[in-house]
């Protein structure tokens, strides 16, 4: 009985908690991708860079606040800096929209052309970020590090397995729920949000109904900048901020958006968790769990790990391919790619 509990605690500690936090981060990232796809009708390859840019501003403002001695007590100071990050990212995406995407909208460029354009934007933003903060790995989480420490948990329960719950993990889940609730309220209840859905559903009819496309596009960029900054900051708090890693995040984020169904916000959230749980579960070494559950005194020779963590991107890639082959519209009937 105790063994089963220990196995469960180990599984929760190493799979369920990290995957939930990672899933929430992917979900918010994928929401941004899916909104751009639904409304501007292209896959935005610069989304990872938008996340990185927003997070960079948060990081810099956090540093400034810390130097002024402003803090949030047990919570990370980055939360205070978040609005500034959102402002920075908004300014960046609005600027790129004016200078780059607007032209391609006017000439009614094919979506595939916009994808290539967004790649160019990605490299530009990437360069700007590296010029400002460099390529180093930075940690900017401060405040209380743990809500539950592994040692305390062991003492509390008397189990031999520890369970740690970090502040950033809980924060990720809480902020993610709040963000998603706010986004869905905006999309489903407000006139502006509804006009965005209408534009995504049927562009011509939206025009006939007097919906101004440029306004819809602008608000979409603002919402996407906010989502990207939140996702990037949560990921950076949970792990660390390294610009190159944010570029790599593009793959699991796109996989999440496509698995859920491009254009479908609910799908993006579901997709985020599907990808995160698959990635973490498949690359987790189950040795400990199996040892607890197996017969007394027996332990597996190997790590009982399906794939080494180096291959975690292969997992999202494989899921992406499987979904594209068998259900190209994704779990929630998005648009076919």
């Amino acid at each position, binding site marked *: 009985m105790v063994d089963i509990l220990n196995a469960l605690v180990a599984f929760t500690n190493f799979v369920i908690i990290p995957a939930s936090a990672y899933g929430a981060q992917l979900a918010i990232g994928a929401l941004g991708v899916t909104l751009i796809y639904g409304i501007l009708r292209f896959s935005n390859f610069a989304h990872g860079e938008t996340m990185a840019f927003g997070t960079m501003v948060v990081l810099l403002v956090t540093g400034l606040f810390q130097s002024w001695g402003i803090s949030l007590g047990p919570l990370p100071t980055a939360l205070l800096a978040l609005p500034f990050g959102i402002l920075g990212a908004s300014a960046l995406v609005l600027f790129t929209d004016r200078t780059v995407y607007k032209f391609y909208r006017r000439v009614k460029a094919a979506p595939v052309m916009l994808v290539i354009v967004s790649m160019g934007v990605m490299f530009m933003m990437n360069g700007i970020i590296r010029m400002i903060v460099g390529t180093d790995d930075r940690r900017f989480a401060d405040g209380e590090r743990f809500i539950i420490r592994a040692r305390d948990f062991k003492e509390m329960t008397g189990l031999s397995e520890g369970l740690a719950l970090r502040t950033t993990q809980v924060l990720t889940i809480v902020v993610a729920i709040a963000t998603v609730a706010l986004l869905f309220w905006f999309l489903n209840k407000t*006139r502006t949000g*509804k*006009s965005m*859905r*209408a534009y995504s*559903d*049927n562009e*011509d*009819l*939206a*025009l*006939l*109904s*007097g*919906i101004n496309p440029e306004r819809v596009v602008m608000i979409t960029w603002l919402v996407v900048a906010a989502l990207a900054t939140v996702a990037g900051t949560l990921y950076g708090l949970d792990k660390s901020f390294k610009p190159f890693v944010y570029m790599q995040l593009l793959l699991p984020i796109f996989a999440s958006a496509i698995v859920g169904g491009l254009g479908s916000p609910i799908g993006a959230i579901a997709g985020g968790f599907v990808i995160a749980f698959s990635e973490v579960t498949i690359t987790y070494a189950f040795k400990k769990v199996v040892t607890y559950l197996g017969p007394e005194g027996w332990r597996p020779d190997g790590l009982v790990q399906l794939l080494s963590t180096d291959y975690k991107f292969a997992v999202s890639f494989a899921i992406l391919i499987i979904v594209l082959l068998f259900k190209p519209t994704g779990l929630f009937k998005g648009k076919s790619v």
Partner: protein
Amino acid sequence: MSFLSATNMTGGYGAGPDILHDLELSVDKGEIAVIVGPNGAGKSTGMKAVFGMLNLREGAVKLDGTDITGLSPQERVHKGMGFVPQVRNIFPTMSVRENLEMGAFIRDDDFEPTIEQVYELFPAVYEKRNQNAGELSGGQRQQVAVGRALMTQPKLLMLDEPTAGVSPIVMDELFDRIIEVAKTGISILMVEQNARQALEIADKGYVLVQGRNAYTDTGEALLADPEVRRTFLGG
């Protein structure tokens, strides 16, 4: 002068060849005008010209005495024109009620009374108000589409083949509804494939051939005209 009067319309899509030649269409207040004719006669194109969706090289469109020839379709909506396209005329992933709300997007005043009127006119729309429009049957979708266009309280409602792809029973039902809309004082200009049934409810019928007016008369007279019957209505 008629409420809508489009005269000498000549033009086509973009820089392409002329599709319409000296076409004339007019509708009086509360009247139903129907455009019929063989495939490729320019029926839908004629209506789109009235709505400003193609460039006219010649001719003028006047609504209630005002020249609107130079206005964009969106501006014409503000002037009191409602347009129901033939396909893709609803927001499929939005609820029926939201479809109506989007129809009223340009209005700043309280549009609840108009929603009530649409519900009254189309009981099926009221019943399905919380369902996504994309989940409805063809006939119900058309009702939602007409309802959406009515939300701006147009003075002229244009329908591009509202009965395309619906069963004969649903078609009769839709025509009944359209008559009711006309009774509220809204002028109706409609393109129809089902020429015979459409002319039966029409105050005025236009038979187009190759982008020109071939026959123009009351619906009744056109149905009785042996030449029109023989060539267009199949005897």
